[in-house]
Structures are given as structure tokens and as C-alpha cells.
């Protein structure tokens, strides 16, 4: 799956993913309020992200299977959306009843639905748009999801202060009510899922279109066949994403404390990564499609992220610059890294490879979220940033190694598009 090329024209899309992405970053948008009202330190706060990731360590393998064999795409989407809604409601109730353990349960349930919902969404897209504007659809899906994240970052803090004013005081109840209102987006997702199921069923009846399948075949034994370049890609994936998502989760307080931003400004700058990712993902996808040379683009993205974190850690320069760089490199990496898996692995192992990649990514996020919280509580933001710099540096090392291994083995990961075309042409002769 490459990043989408931009093209004119649009299609009706469901806002299904928007609700889940909106609510995923609710903790980041309300970090100060959660830590204050629930009286938790950063380590416990980061558990809200860790619990989202834990179920997905396993579900990345099972998601495709559940959709293909057990539920079918329509019921699968509806069930996962229900998990997302119930999870968000339980999360909010944890606030209302002032029970942090209930909030953690809510995030766990939310996590069960969230990532699997993305798989279902992609399956719908392939089923409806394969052979047509599929890349554009993937790109627009991602953009909608990122718009959801951005709106969350900028809206939730404001919403909380409005409830605080009308309820008369801050506290767990105010927090819970704010989260419940945020959960309305999940209801919208559920309505979309139901509408999609109805339309899909109608299409099957009228157009004799088959129900979509993920097409993934997950065989855990395939893992032993993974090559060294593929393992290096896994390492890059884990090491890279752990410096983006946990950082955004903890970023708001960083911008308030170090740079003296107000709460609104800090929320806005924290959302910049997503704001940039929405339009730039399709553009970068187009660029990588046209030029090839994936490893070089990954190298650029990782190096830019390293520079961005160094700026945030060691300078007092306006953090808008560093966050814009982070947004650009995050978008670029997604477009250049994930397609490389398809060049390394035969089609029948692709499901296992992507499932494994997502699984360890979630495992890394779950563990590093907690570690980030501990580091922040005991040693502060500078040491946390240096830790992130260490992780990016590990990713950078892996990219360099990947280039060398690929070059030494005469691999095709860094081919330009022209070379790939020539290769395809010579194979068909």
C-alpha cells in the first residue's frame, strides 16, 4: 500500500475513523486537567496510552482473521465501532466516578476497537475503490483521521474550561462530562458504520458485489522467513513512532512550562504534526511514487526528526519550527517506509509482515509510553528529550545499515521509479 497520489475529484467517504482518532488523543489534549483532577503522576497518566496499545499487540494479527472469517466486514466494522463507543463512555465514566482504574479499562476497550477499525476501514476502501482512486481514498482517509486529531487537540481544552465555568468548579466530574461530549464523535462513527453496512448490503444485492475481504493470510511461522532488511525496517518503525506519539502525548505541558505558551497555544502547537500530516501525506506519497529511492527518503525523514528533537531539547528557538519539521518528517516516513515491506516480502506473507510490524509498533508504544512517564516524573523533560534522541539515533543507525545491506545484496529497496519500471519490463519479457 503506497501513500496516495493526489488527484482531482472526490468520493463519498465515511467519517468512521475520525471519531476514533479524535478520541485517541483526548488524554494529550487534557493532560494537565487529568493529572490534576485524578491526582495522578505522569507515569500513571501515560498508562492511558499504554492500555490502548496493549490489546493491539495481539489484535494486529487477529483483526484480519476476525473480519474475513468470523464477523464479515459489515458486522466487523459495527462491532469494532461499538467497542470504540463503549470504551470512550467507560473512559468518561471513570472521570465522573473519580476512578482512574475505570479510565484505564475504558482505554483498553477503546483500544480493542480502534486499531481493528482501521483495518476494517481499509478493507471497505479496497472493496469499493480498487482499481480506481484507491490511493486518493487512502490519503483522504488518513487526512480525515488527522483532522479529527487536530480538532481534538484544539477543542477539548476549550470545552473543559466552558464546563468548568458552567459547573462552577474543576474536578473529576467536569473531566468526565467533557470526555462524554468528546465521545459524541464516536456515536457519529457508529452511525456511519451502520449506514455503510446498509449501503454495502444494498450494493451486494444490486451490483452483485462481493463482501470485502482483507485478503490477509496470517501465518506466524512465516516470521522465520523474514530477511535482515525487513527486520531493520521493523526496528526503524518501532524506534521512530515511539518518539512521535508519546512525545505528543506529553507535549502540551512541555510547551507551557518551557516556552511559556498558554494552554490554547500549547494545544495548537501540539496538533501541528497532525495538521501538516493531513495535506502533506498525499503530496509526499505522490513524490515518493514518482522518484522511488525509498531508503533515502526514510533517511531524510529520520534525520529531520533528529534535528527537530534536538532543537526542542537544546534550544529556546520558537518550537513551531521544530514541530513543523516533525510533522513533515512524520508524513514523509509513513509514505516511504511502509511500502518497502511490499518489496521485500511475497504477497502471501504480506499480511503477516504488516501484522507483525503493527504488533511490535504497538508493543513499543505501550512500553515506551510508560517509560516516558517515569523519566518525566523523575528526571524532567530534558532527559526525556535526550532519551527520544537516543531512540531516533537508533532508527538512523538502522536506516544506514539498511542502505548498506541493501546495496551489498543488490536489493531493490532504493531503486528509482524508472529502475523499477525497467525491472518490471525485463521480467515480463
Amino acid at each position, binding site marked *: 500500500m503506497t501513500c496516495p497520489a493526489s488527484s482531482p475529484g472526490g468520493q463519498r467517504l465515511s467519517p468512521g475513523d475520525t471519531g476514533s482518532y479524535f478520541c485517541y488523543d483526548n488524554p494529550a489534549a487534557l493532560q494537565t486537567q487529568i493529572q490534576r483532577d485524578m*491526582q495522578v503522576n505522569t507515569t500513571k497518566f501515560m498508562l492511558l496510552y499504554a492500555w490502548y496499545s496493549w490489546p493491539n499487540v495481539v489484535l494486529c494479527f487477529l483483526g484480519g482473521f476476525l473480519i474475513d472469517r468470523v464477523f464479515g466486514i459489515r458486522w466487523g466494522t459495527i462491532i469494532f465501532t461499538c467497542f470504540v463507543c463503549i470504551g470512550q463512555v467507560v473512559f468518561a465514566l471513570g472521570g465522573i466516578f473519580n476512578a482512574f482504574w475505570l479510565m484505564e479499562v475504558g482505554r483498553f476497550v477503546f483500544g480493542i476497537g480502534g486499531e481493528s477499525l482501521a483495518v476494517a476501514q481499509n478493507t471497505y476502501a479496497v472493496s469499493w475503490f480498487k482499481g480506481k482512486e484507491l490511493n486518493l481514498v487512502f490519503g483522504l482517509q488518513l487526512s480525515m483521521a488527522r483532522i479529527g486529531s487536530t480538532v481534538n487537540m484544539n477543542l477539548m481544552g476549550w470545552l473543559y474550561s466552558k464546563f468548568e465555568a458552567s459547573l462552577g468548579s474543576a474536578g473529576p466530574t467536569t473531566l468526565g462530562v467533557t470526555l462524554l461530549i468528546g465521545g459524541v464523535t464516536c456515536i457519529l462513527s457508529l452511525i456511519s458504520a451502520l449506514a455503510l453496512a446498509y449501503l454495502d448490503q444494498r450494493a451486494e444485492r444490486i451490483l452483485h458485489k462481493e463482501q470485502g475481504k482483507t485478503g490477509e493470510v496470517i501465518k506466524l511461522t512465516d516470521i522465520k522467513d523474514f530477511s535482515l532488511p525487513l527486520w531493520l525496517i521493523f526496528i526503524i518503525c518501532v524506534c521512530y513512532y515511539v518518539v512521535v506519539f508519546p512525545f505528543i502525548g506529553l507535549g502540551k505541558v512541555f510547551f507551557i*512550562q*518551557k516556552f511559556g505558551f498558554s494552554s490554547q497555544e500549547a494545544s495548537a502547537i501540539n496538533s501541528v504534526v497532525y495538521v501538516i500530516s493531513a495535506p502533506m501525506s498525499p503530496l509526499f506519497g505522490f513524490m515518493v511514487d514518482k522518484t522511488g529511492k525509498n531508503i533515502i527518503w526514510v533517511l531524510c525523514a529520520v534525520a529531520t526528526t533528529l534535528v527537530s528533537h534536538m532543537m526542542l531539547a537544546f534550544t529556546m528557538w520558537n518550537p513551531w519550527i521544530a514541530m513543523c519539521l516533525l510533522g513533515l518528517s512524520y508524513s514523509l516516513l509513513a509514505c516511504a517506509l511502509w511500502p518497502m515491506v511490499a518489496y521485500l516480502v511475497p504477497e502471501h506473507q504480506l499480511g503477516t509482515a504488516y501484522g507483525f510490524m503493527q504488533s511490535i509498533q504497538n508493543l513499543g508504544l505501550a512500553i515506551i509510553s510508560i517509560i516516558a512517564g517515569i523519566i518525566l516524573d523523575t528526571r*524532567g523533560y530534558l532527559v526525556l528529550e*535526550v532519551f527520544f*534522541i537516543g531512540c531516533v539515533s537508533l532508527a538512523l543507525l538502522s536506516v544506514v545499515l539498511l542502505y548498506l545491506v541493501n546495496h551489498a545484496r543488490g536489493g531493490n529497496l532504493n531503486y528509482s521509479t524508472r529502475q523499477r519500471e525497467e525491472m518490471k519490463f525485463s521480467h515480463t519479457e
Partner: protein
Amino acid sequence: MYSCGALRRGWGHCAPSPILFFSLLLSAAPFGLLGEETRQNLLHIRAVGTNSTLHYVWSTLGPPTVVLVATNTPHSVLSINWTRLLSPEPDGGLMILPKDSIQFSSALIFTRLLEFDSATSDAAAKPPGKPYPPYSLAEFSWNNITDSLYPATLSATFQGHPKGDPTGAFANGSLAFRVQAFARSGRPDQPPRLLHTADTCQLEVALVGASPRGNHSLFGIEVATVGQSPDCPMIQEQHSIDDEYAPTVFQLYQLLWGSLPSGFAQWRPVAFSQEKAGRESALSCQAFPLHPTVAHSLPQSPVVQAFFGLQEKYCTFNLTFGASTGPGYWDQHYLSWSMLLGVGLPPVDALSPLILGIMTVALGIPGLMLLGAGLTLILRCKHASEYQSIN
């Protein structure tokens, strides 16, 4: 060189050192002069270098006061005339001799304990809420510090409560000033972990157990200093990238009495609402700028008058702790805040070896690899281009 301070009353502690001679002298006024049960505490900390001496005179005679004096001789001594000091005109009761060796002298007086009702306030308001009548620290009665003197840590604690306490707010509570001197550079284990040197003293102000007058009371302290020049000194706010020692606190406040080297006071804008200080109990600390104040509107300090003579003008500033939401004194009826006092160059934080080590490895290894890979590729290309075909 090894020697011990000889003392008539009280107790002394000695540290052998070729550079620093350290003595802690504790005096209590003779009972006969006072005729009252309250002991008047006076703690003298003297740090002697090769050609200079620093004197810190801490006292709860009147409001808690510290007089800082730096002299350019290792032989300067503190001279106390108790009769004069305890009289209504204490001028000349406290002296550092020889007088002409004094390079710098100033004082900090903690005049009042302030309390505000934060429920009526806006977060950024100055002052942070409707003020309750403040407690004058000149009207406090203090413990006998011989009981709270710890020679091993070079520290002593002045603990007091109001003499008249009609509401019983301090029935189970006290306001404590813990003074600590240091023989060498280092950092305490507890946040805010201010870097200290042998030239500095640390003061920790702790309010424990006192009953607040409202449900969400914010406390503060009023501090006065002797106005040396026509203008009051300014509090400088320093921003740094390093919050290793006080997590999420990137600022350092400094009060410099004059151009360097002179006396300084240094603190981080954070206070703590639990004894085990940590991020979850951190309160913000706001410092208001110094402004000139006439002497008669402040509780008088006999120690300052004894050393400096009758002063007409002081410079005062307020420090307030906490905000209307979040952790506060109301959690455990505990509040503590630390500052560093010294003379000379204020200590400057530097990046720790851990950070420098990680950065060296994190940047060095990929950098070297990139360099190596680049060189290898250049050499290979060059080798390939040097090949010449036979035909």
C-alpha cells in the same frame, strides 16, 4: 590548617581543611537580661577562606532575619553586645570587626506570613485572591534551636508559632525556617535540588499543620531587604533548557544586590505540598517585583537595626505559592519552599554527565557510520570509474 572556633556559650563544629574553615556558633541571650521565658536565637555561620570570610547571622530576634557580610580578611569576627542588642535602641549591638574589612553587607527579613482566599481569584491575578489579615512574624515565639541543631548536616531549624493565637490556627502547626550550610559543592536529594557551594547557605521555609482560614487558602511570604542604593534591586528570571534537577521547572529566579561579586539569593519558582517532594505535589511560586517600603509599615528587626543602624527605607517583595486549582496546601496542610543565599558568583547549573554521554553516543555512532558509508561509496565509485575497458 586545622582549628576550632572557641565559644563561650553554645557549640561549635570544626572541619579540617586547608582552604575552608567552618564554624557554627550558637548563642542564646542570657535569661537575666530578658526576664522572659522566650529564648532569643542567634545562629552565626562563618566560612573562612584563604583571604576572605563570609558571615551569615540568622536570628529570630523580631522577625526571622539573616545578615550576610563578606570581608576581605580571614580574621574578621562577630561581636555581640547583648545588652545593647536587647535594648529598645540596638544600634551597634552587632558588629563585624574590623569594620573596614567589610566588602559587602545586606540582610533579608521575613516579615509576614500572607494568606489569600483563592476561591475569589483569577489565576493570573495579583494578588492571587482576597487577602486575609497577615501573620506578623515579629509576633511569633520560637523554639530553642539547640534542640534542632544537627552538626553532621550543618543545619539548624527555627520553629515558631504566633504568640497570640485566638483562633487556634497554629494549635497543631508551626512555621519552620531550616538553615543549612555546606562544606563543599553538591545538591540535596529532594527537589528543587538547588546547586550549592561552600559559599552558600540554604534556607527551607516550611508551613506544617497550621489551619488555613478558608477552604482554598493560598499562602505567601513577605520578604524585605535593606535598601542600599536609591533603587531597589531587581529579581531576574533566568530561563534554561535544563530541568533535570527540578522536573518541568525551567526557570531560576535570582536576586542580586549589586554588580558581581555581591550577595545573591537564588530559588526555583516551585514549592511542594508534600514532604516527599515530587512532580505531583509541585506548586507554582510567583514572585512580585521589589518595591520601596517605608520602615514603619514593616515589623522591625532589631538585628538589622543593630548592624545597619536605623533604616528609613526597605525594599520588599512577596512570594505566593500555588494556584486556585491543582495541588495546594489544602492537600496535606504542608508547604515547603527553598532558596539559596550566598555571596559571590551564583552557582550555575550545567548538563549532567548522563546527558552528555547519551548525546555523544547517540550522535557519534550514526555520524561515524554515515561518514564511513559515504566514504566507502565514494571510493567504490572512484574505483569503478578508474576501470578502463580493453578495447
